[in-house]
């Protein structure tokens, strides 16, 4: 099968994740959409590795996963601390700088 299909799927998933980041208001759902975008990029990396017969794409995807894990840990800690002080996980409520 032509691996380009994986790239189309990756582009589609990335776009869906981008819509989610803009549209949803719950900070945790926004965060999950960011994870979806990261995963889509990973799929593209793995597909490029197969296309070029070179494992470096898989190594980069592996590193992306580790960085994404770090990002999730810190991001969720930030969400929890915001929730503690404001009693809300909505991204619209964290708007102190605009006032």
């Amino acid at each position, binding site marked *: 099968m032509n*691996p380009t299909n994986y790239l189309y*799927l990756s582009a589609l998933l990335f776009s869906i994740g981008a819509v989610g980041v803009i549209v949803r208001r719950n900070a945790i*759902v926004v*965060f999950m959409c960011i994870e979806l975008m990261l995963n889509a990029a990973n799929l593209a990396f793995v597909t490029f590795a197969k296309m070029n017969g070179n494992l470096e794409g898989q190594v980069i995807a592996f590193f992306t996963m580790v960085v994404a894990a*770090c990002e999730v840990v*810190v991001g*969720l*800690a930030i969400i929890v601390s915001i929730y503690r002080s404001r009693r*809300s996980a909505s991204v619209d409520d964290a708007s102190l700088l605009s006032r």
Partner: protein
Amino acid sequence: MSGEVIVFWALAPLTVFAAIGMLLVKKAVHSAILLAFVMIALAVFYIMQEAPFLGVVQIVVYTGAVMMLFLFILMLVGVDSSDSLVESIKGLRGVAIFTALAFAAALTSLIARARTGRDPVGLELANAEGNVQALAALIFGDFVWAFEVISALLITAALGAMVLAHTQKSPEARQSQRVRSIARFRGESIGTAAGLPGSGVFARHNAVDVPALLPDGKPSDLSISNVLAQRGDVQETKTYSLEGLPKLDDEEGSK
């Protein structure tokens, strides 16, 4: 038709539907479950594309660790108004969908034109000694410096999460046992020093939402948990009051 084609066309539409469903469902927990499905499907795609190590790591790290963390935080934060799908900025949804469609169209046309007429190489040669061995040679060879930096990043992230999620206890909360004991037996709470009355005592039912009856037949509000009272889950106290019944003293007096 090879197995890869069948699996791809069976799984890829489901993956896209699950991803779209992530945006449409109201509850964040349902979004998390759909995202877990997308991640497992991606792991299958990795394994089909001669990346078995990444496929396993995807399941272990993403569906195992990251999604567990998401669900854990969801339970910690709970459900609030931010789950609603009402758009707070007018027209944002239309703009977002239009932009994303345009972006997807641009990417798709780019991919379609970039690879026309070139055969993919495949990983048979690179994976000759086994995928894990070849990846290990790369990670601990060419990319060893990046690997070390990422280990530092992991430790920093763990410390950062600890600092961000840590809360200092207020000094008032740290009273000694002696102080608390004196406050309990010499303060206003002397009336309940022996414990609050249990629910349902002397009442017709002993469920947690049935107030206990005092010796004069009146229901006792103290016997019901405050949480139940605030949620409005308490049985109507008058139903269980004994005031309407003939008193025991009268019956014995008539005999």
